[in-house]
């Protein structure tokens, strides 16, 4: 405490002008590094901070003739319209429920897969398991939805199985009731292997002596997983969970867009696809920019909240 005060007192003693001139000299010496950064920084300003400037149309009535700056302010009118609309409930419900189910059902699966992989003693079998489960990650969304369509079509293998057991074929892809199951199930299929890599790496980093000690104490393998493996990867789990929460509202919407049709819209209409269809296809820029902003703000608030909570409870956090 005292040393910190002493340091604080010492700082003004060093004359600010000399410090800043040293900083300038340092910067001048490294001018070519700034030259390298010129293009990337300009790009970040234009393509990441530029849209932030454009975001003001969320509070304006954008007209192309007047431009972003010249359009007139309307305050929170667009937000008001969104919350008064008859579809707001459906959009929010679908977005939140898909996200929540993903987080509770899909999130733990890569962890389980990594634990299974960690318990396999045969190295070659383990390699096979990993290589095969990583594979779907490299298939494009269009192809995944294409596979779903042929697989779940009335003449596809799943429906043949249904018929074999005496059921009648189900039009899975055109059913609102099945939409969320199919969406989340195929996400798991595509991503569980890839997402398990980080956990596998974390498990490999656990000190083997901990396992030995647990074994000496007579812990069964299940107990060793519970008391050694899991605690060893908790920090990684927490970080990934926080990152996921930071994107809570934007749920793989490129895939939802491909799976969406008039018959399953009841379950597949989410905020981000609504922004696309109403904003880009119908040209209601200001209105959908406002909805997009609402989405981003919720994401950011959730991220800040969860990060703070995690720092308090587990001492692991993003910053």
């Amino acid at each position, binding site marked *: 405490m005292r040393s910190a005060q002493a340091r604080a007192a010492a700082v003004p003693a060093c004359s600010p002008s000399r410090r800043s001139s040293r900083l300038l000299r*340092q910067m001048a010496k*490294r001018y*070519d*590094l700034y030259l*390298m*950064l010129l*293009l*990337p920084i300009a*790009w970040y300003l234009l*393509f*990441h*901070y*530029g*849209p*932030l400037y*454009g*975001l003001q*149309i969320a509070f304006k009535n954008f007209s192309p003739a007047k431009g972003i700056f010249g359009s007139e302010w309307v305050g929170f009118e667009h937000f008001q319209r969104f919350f008064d609309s008859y579809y707001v409930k459906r959009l929010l419900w679908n977005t939140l429920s898909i996200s929540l189910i993903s987080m509770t059902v899909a999130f733990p699966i890569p962890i389980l897969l990594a634990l*299974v992989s960690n318990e*396999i003693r045969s190295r070659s*079998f383990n390699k*096979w*398991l990993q290589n*095969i489960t*990583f*594979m779907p990650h*490299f*298939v*494009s*969304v*269009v*192809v995944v939805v*294409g596979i779903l*369509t*042929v*697989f779940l079509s009335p003449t596809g*293998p799943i429906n*043949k199985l249904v018929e074999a057991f005496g059921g009648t074929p189900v039009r899975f892809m055109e059913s609102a009731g099945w939409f969320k199951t199919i969406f989340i199930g195929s996400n798991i*299929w595509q991503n569980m292997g*890839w997402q398990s*890599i*980080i956990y596998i*790496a*974390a498990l490999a980093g656990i000190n083997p002596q901990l396992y030995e000690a647990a074994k000496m104490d*007579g812990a*069964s*393998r299940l107990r060793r997983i519970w008391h050694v493996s899991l605690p060893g990867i908790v920090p*990684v789990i927490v970080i990934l969970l926080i990152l996921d929460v930071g994107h809570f509202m934007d749920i793989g919407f*490129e895939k939802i*867009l*491909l799976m969406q049709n008039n018959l399953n819209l009841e379950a597949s209409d989410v905020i981000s696809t609504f922004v*696309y269809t109403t904003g*880009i296809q119908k040209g209601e820029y200001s209105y959908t*920019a406002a909805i*997009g*902003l609402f*989405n*981003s703000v919720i*994401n*950011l608030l959730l991220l800040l909240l969860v990060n703070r909570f995690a720092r308090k409870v587990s001492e692991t956090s993003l910053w």
Partner: protein
Amino acid sequence: MAKTAAANRVSDGKGFDILVYAIAAIVIAVVLYPLLFVVSASFSDPARVLNGDVWLLPKGVSTEAYANILRNREVWTGYGNTIVYTAAGTTVNLIMTVLAAYPLSRPDLPGRKLLMVLITITMFFNGGLIPTYMLVKDLGMVDTMWALIIPNAIATYNLIVMRTYFQTTIPWELQEAAHMDGCSNWRLLRSIILPLSKPILAVMVLFYAVGHWNSYFNALIYIRKEALYPLQLVLREILLISQSDAVDANVGLEDKVLLAESVKYAVIIVASLPVWVMYPLVQRHFVKGVMIGSIKG
């Protein structure tokens, strides 16, 4: 007493092993089956696929579907476009990412913390779809390939991975020594840093290239001219929108419907082939990339 405990442990281990291997086998089967089914169906007689005869292995082997795709001009154009977009896009990605990651990895660069904060923020808060779309439109990039390349010139996650690599694997002393010898930063980057960073450069090429190859959404919003469609958009038309347009016009209606089904399987294979062929060769690089990324930057 000790003996029985040991015996218990052994039996406990065996049962546990069986369980673990059983779960792993089920996972492998579930992941692999859809892929194998698509491959088999693409080589089968369309009528037998529709009847549900095909379970695992091709029935009534036929390459008619592939022949049809090879005659489809849109698929060829899409393929060509995607190759161009992937090559040009990945080149831009690589240059921009190196130019950003290297200076930001230098501990002696004043202001790098602030810059990193400004860059990292963009991962969690951005203008969103509409303002970005309007910007790209105002820049006159709609209906040009630049709309697919420039707005995605840097993936911030990749930038952080690369910066972490520079910081952790290239000794700072080496760079300082080069400075002492009067080596400029550009030469340092070109003749010392980049040659030492081949593994991470390979990972970046893979990440970016697969990203370009597989992406469809940017093309969906920025590309209207069909002649400029990338493969994934052509694929979307064939798989999800039109039912039988992909098939030659000179076959009967019934055959056309049948063929349209099997063309779907074949086109999935044709579009994913480059990635799958490359996959076994580069798989470990991908994994390495994720590992580096997981070191908190």
